[in-house]
């Protein structure tokens, strides 16, 4: 297999323990309707003998109720279905100690959120927001969340399904993985700048360019993995690393804030840190006047 684009379901089988995936079931949740948010695959599996929640995209199906949902797009039903899987993971492990919360594995291959009129009338923004808040809550409750980009991780859909993880891993660009807001061809068209020149600029500044390597340099991806076979072991290793940091109370080294620090270390996103530093100083100088 050259790549895993559109193969979210197959990717689950390559990562979790053989034949352990139970689709639709997470704690008390048991979804049996095959037409409920079919673009999102949720369920429970074993990962090296440990119970874990799996959330993936299914690009090979369409949502019969929402025609804009196909090819791995996350629609309203999909977003809420994914959120249900997360909240039920939290609920199921409510009484378990910090080091024993089940990992949540996000297998990412999605090109976007549902772009339709009905979606806007009822509020697609709430569905994608709901899933992100659920993931952030699970992360802070102690669940290790690892995202594995196996195909497309595009813009708002990557924010929805991926960027709230503790750690993000991506198959390398040889597997046609795509991480971007917009391809460089579109950026060229809109900014009226030559593609060749933009590609040259991207070498020294990863802030706009498309691809996992640029996200790595910005700290937006923790690790790039160069073989499909290695995914399983690397995910298991990252779950363990994340757990150690959570047990040590180092939540600021994980998730979106941790990736901000990583962006400085890797040299791709330095200005952010400067802004934060100066703002903190300016606030400290007047804090007494406001906090009484």
């Amino acid at each position, binding site marked *: 297999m050259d790549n895993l684009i559109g193969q979210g379901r197959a990717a689950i089988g390559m990562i979790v323990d053989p034949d352990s995936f139970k689709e639709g079931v997470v704690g008390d949740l048991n979804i049996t309707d095959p037409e409920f948010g079919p673009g999102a695959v949720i369920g429970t599996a074993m990962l090296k003998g440990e119970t874990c929640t799996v959330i993936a995209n299914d690009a090979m199906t369409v949502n019969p109720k929402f025609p804009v949902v196909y090819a791995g797009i996350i629609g309203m039903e999909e977003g809420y279905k994914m959120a249900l899987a997360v909240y039920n993971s939290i609920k199921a492990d409510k009484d378990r100690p910090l080091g024993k919360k089940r990992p949540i594995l996000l297998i990412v291959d999605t090109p976007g959120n549902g772009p339709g009129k009905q979606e806007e009338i009822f509020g697609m923004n709430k569905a994608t927001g709901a899933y992100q808040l659920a993931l952030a809550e699970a992360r802070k409750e102690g669940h290790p969340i690892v995202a594995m980009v196996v195909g497309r991780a595009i813009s708002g859909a990557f924010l929805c399904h991926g960027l709230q993880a503790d750690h993000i891993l991506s198959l390398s660009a040889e597997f046609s993985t795509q991480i971007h807001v917009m391809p460089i061809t579109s950026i060229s068209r809109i900014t009226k*700048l030559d593609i060749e*020149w933009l590609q040259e600029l991207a070498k020294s500044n990863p802030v706009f360019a498309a691809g996992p390597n640029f996200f790595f340099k910005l700290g937006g991806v923790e690790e790039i993995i160069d073989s499909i076979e290695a995914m399983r072991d690397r995910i298991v290793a990252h779950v363990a690393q994340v757990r150690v940091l959570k047990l040590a109370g180092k939540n600021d080294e994980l998730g979106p804030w941790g990736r901000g620090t990583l962006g400085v270390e890797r040299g791709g996103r330095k200005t952010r840190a400067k802004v934060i530093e100066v703002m903190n100083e300016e606030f400290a100088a007047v804090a007494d006047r406001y906090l009484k």
Partner: protein
Amino acid sequence: MAKQLRELNFEFKAETPKDFPAGFLHYGVVGSGDMEVIIEKKAMSGAVKFKVVTPVTGFDEVWRRVLERFVNETGISNASLEINDCNATPVVVSLRLRQALAEIG
């Protein structure tokens, strides 16, 4: 083609100088066809210096004339002006600079 923001620098002295009466002033929004300016008091032996950051090429002489006239007409002196421009016309530039000064009053 590489496209870069350009920086233009000018210095003028008003015929009848009046000191800039405030320490620091910011005015304007960098909307399309608009600009913002920071004016700061600075001991410059009566001179005024400008730094203009703009995406526009080929209008350096127009900038010179507009800014020089502003200095002579208002008598502003001992000040440093920094302008961020986004394709503002000379009329808009003159208007915004005068509005900025009016903020002090």
